[in-house]
């Protein structure tokens, strides 16, 4: 029902007009700086998907075209843990959503994620970011599909603090590059194989190009669309917490027909697929749910003891099974009743890590494939306190027996792996299964859009004023400039002081006193009264009008010495006409020469 004059808007098959309804649009595109390999157009493609301005007759339109977009450039150079930590919290009281279309290598053999500082920054972001409602971290699940990679080997994707987004093509299928994982929350559109359309967005390209592309693809293209839809949610309800956003995604993502998706419905009625998460994001459903959403209870958690096993992992078809029973008493302290994320931290030795398969069964029997075999991963170091996670038990009861089943799908030539130890961590809330069902019903009643008009608004607290601790920061360039200016100033000061010293010494050495000791000219009474008297070195001897040279009696006063600026290097130029040098007072205002003597050199 909305019309834009942007030429490629009609090609933007992935936009859903009713979900992108916007209240204003007034944002110029942030232009990046060109770099050598012109590599940062990646950011502009993602930015365009989110916030390209409509009706400017340029290129296309962003999902949240009323939002403002900031670029935090961190990939175009050496990247360390501390730099990641800085990036995750940069301007975290201004930026609501951090859309991260990057991560560890998707080569099917890397196991990596945020290190100590990155983890601390993610946690700090959800606690203190966005005025205390929590920064929203959206991450792309990865492009390792061709190496049968799994995003549970990526610590950004399987973190409880991030919204992990996968990709589907325009027919809703998992594209060749996409990864499966049990910690994926939802999917949205991106490019598929050759015959299918990719994402249309802006594409800043210094050397060539039209500023547009119809070829944006990968999970990099899906994450920003999700970020844009989350922005629309925050537009209707800014006080949604980071966990509210995750809940609304779980409650509103839509399951759809895809035989290969292997959908499983859990005890709480949520359907999840390792390929598609809880389903396809739908902006209309997300925004209507956000409009009436009241905040979920605080995050509760339960951590089991470290369970030492030291048990061998048999070759397939056999498997090692270990259990842990979480009793009512265990949960009493935290009040935890229903689940959100379930995490398992394992230490396993094995000569070829890619041969291992790990499955976790929640008390309801819901199975999560948390670690998949990876043919490319021949790492002999196994897993050392690596945390896998799953969202497939979302909304299920927390109490009961959890089963971890590990299989070795490698060949028998290798030495058997050993499960050293494991630890179970449950995250959830005091919501009961009844509360969850009530909320599901409430949301369905809102999908008609009857609450979307402005008349209906739930109270929304403004959030906390959290100062961004960053004091004034001097960038290295500014610092270098200051140092340069400072050195320059010091140098010239030294030069001038030397100059004065030498000139005085020079003058003193040329001074001839014929009649006895040298005396300073009389200090005029008048000058002393007026306070215009200045201490300074006599530049020449004094001579009375009839030409007889006499000695000056004391420090000459201002009126006697107003010579041209003899500190000016040119003034000491020996080739200079002596007359000028000798009679520097010639151009004095006559009234200044009222003294008894006329100063002559």
């Amino acid at each position, binding site marked *: 029902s909305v019309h834009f004059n942007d030429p490629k808007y009609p090609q933007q098959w992935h936009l859903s007009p009713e979900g992108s309804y916007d209240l204003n649009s007034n944002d110029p595109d942030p232009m990046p700086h060109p770099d050598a390999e012109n590599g940062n157009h*990646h950011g502009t493609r993602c930015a365009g998907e989110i916030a390209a301005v409509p009706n400017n007759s340029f290129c296309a339109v962003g999902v949240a075209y009323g939002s403002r977009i900031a670029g935090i450039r*961190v*990939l175009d*150079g*050496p*990247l*360390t*843990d*501390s*730099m*990641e*930590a*800085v*990036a*995750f*919290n*940069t301007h*975290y009281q201004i930026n609501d959503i951090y859309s991260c*279309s*990057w*991560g*560890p*290598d*998707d080569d099917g053999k*890397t196991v*990596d994620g945020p*290190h*100590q*500082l990155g983890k*601390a*920054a993610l946690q*700090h972001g959800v606690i*203190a970011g966005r005025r205390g409602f929590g920064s929203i971290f959206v991450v*792309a699940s*990865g*492009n390792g599909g061709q190496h049968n990679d799994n995003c549970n080997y990526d610590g950004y994707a399987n973190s409880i603090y991030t919204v992990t987004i996968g990709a589907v093509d325009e027919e809703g299928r998992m594209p060749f590059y996409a990864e499966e994982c049990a910690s994926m929350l939802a999917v949205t559109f991106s490019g598929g194989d050759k015959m299918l359309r990719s994402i249309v967005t802006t594409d800043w390209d210094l050397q060539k190009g039209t500023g547009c592309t119809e070829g944006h693809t*990968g*999970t*990099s293209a899906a*994450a920003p669309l999700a970020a844009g839809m989350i922005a629309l949610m925050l537009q209707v309800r800014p006080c949604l917490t980071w966990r509210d956003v995750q809940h609304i995604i779980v409650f509103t993502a839509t399951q759809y027909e895809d035989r290969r998706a292997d959908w499983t419905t859990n005890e709480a009625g949520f359907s999840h697929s390792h390929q598609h998460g809880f389903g396809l994001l739908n902006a209309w459903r997300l925004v209507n749910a956000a409009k009436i959403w009241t905040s979920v209870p605080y995050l509760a958690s339960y951590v089991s003891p470290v369970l030492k096993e030291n048990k061998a992992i048999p070759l397939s078809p056999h498997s090692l099974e270990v259990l842990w029973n979480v009793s009512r008493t265990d949960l009493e302290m935290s009040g935890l009743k229903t689940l959100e994320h379930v995490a398992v931290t394992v230490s396993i030795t094995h000569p070829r890590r890619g041969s291992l398969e790990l499955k976790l069964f929640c008390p309801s029997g819901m199975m999560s494939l948390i670690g998949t075999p990876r043919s490319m991963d021949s790492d002999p170091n196994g897993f050392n306190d690596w945390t896998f996670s799953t969202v497939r038990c979302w909304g299920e009861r927390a109490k009961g027996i959890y089963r971890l089943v590990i299989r070795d799908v490698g060949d028998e030539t290798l030495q058997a792996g050993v499960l050293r130890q494991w630890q179970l961590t449950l995250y959830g809330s005091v919501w009961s299964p009844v509360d969850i069902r009530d909320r599901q019903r409430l949301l369905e009643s809102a999908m008609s859009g009857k609450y979307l008009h402005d008349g209906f608004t739930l109270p929304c607290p403004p959030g906390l004023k959290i100062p*961004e*601790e*960053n*004091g*004034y*920061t*001097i*960038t*290295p360039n500014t*610092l270098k400039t200051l140092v340069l200016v400072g050195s320059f100033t010091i140098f010239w000061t030294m030069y001038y002081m030397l100059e004065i010293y030498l000139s005085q010494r020079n003058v003193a050495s040329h001074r001839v006193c014929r009649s006895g000791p040298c005396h300073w000219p009389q200090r005029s009474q008048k000058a002393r009264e007026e306070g215009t008297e200045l201490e300074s070195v006599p530049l020449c001897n004094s001579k009375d009008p009839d030409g007889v040279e006499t000695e000056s009696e004391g420090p000459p006063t201002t009126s006697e010495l107003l010579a041209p600026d003899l500190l000016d290097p040119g003034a000491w130029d020996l080739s200079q006409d002596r007359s000028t040098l000798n009679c520097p007072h010639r151009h004095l205002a006559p009234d200044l020469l009222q003294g008894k003597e006329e100063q002559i050199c």
Partner: protein
Amino acid sequence: LAGTHRPGAQGPGGLSWAVHLDSLEDGGPEETLEQQADALARAAGLLNAGRIGELRGYYLLVQPVGQQQGQPAEAVRRQAEAVLAGHEAVRWHSEQRLLKRAKR
């Protein structure tokens, strides 16, 4: 450079360590932590490049640019590790290594 942990603060290719300081009393003034970090950096032969983002108590200590030519990296590393590992105010420390991250 205080409070200005910027990636550019450390010389390209220089060694750097992240440290988590035990603030004397929770909520104590930032300056105290800053001074602690300065003193710790001096003791370890490093430069305090400032707090790491918004993480209170976390500081980045970098090898001064001038020193990078002078001393072999291994000697700098040994000295820094010895000081940081043995210092009572250091709750945690970690040498910063390059991470491989790719656009998706």
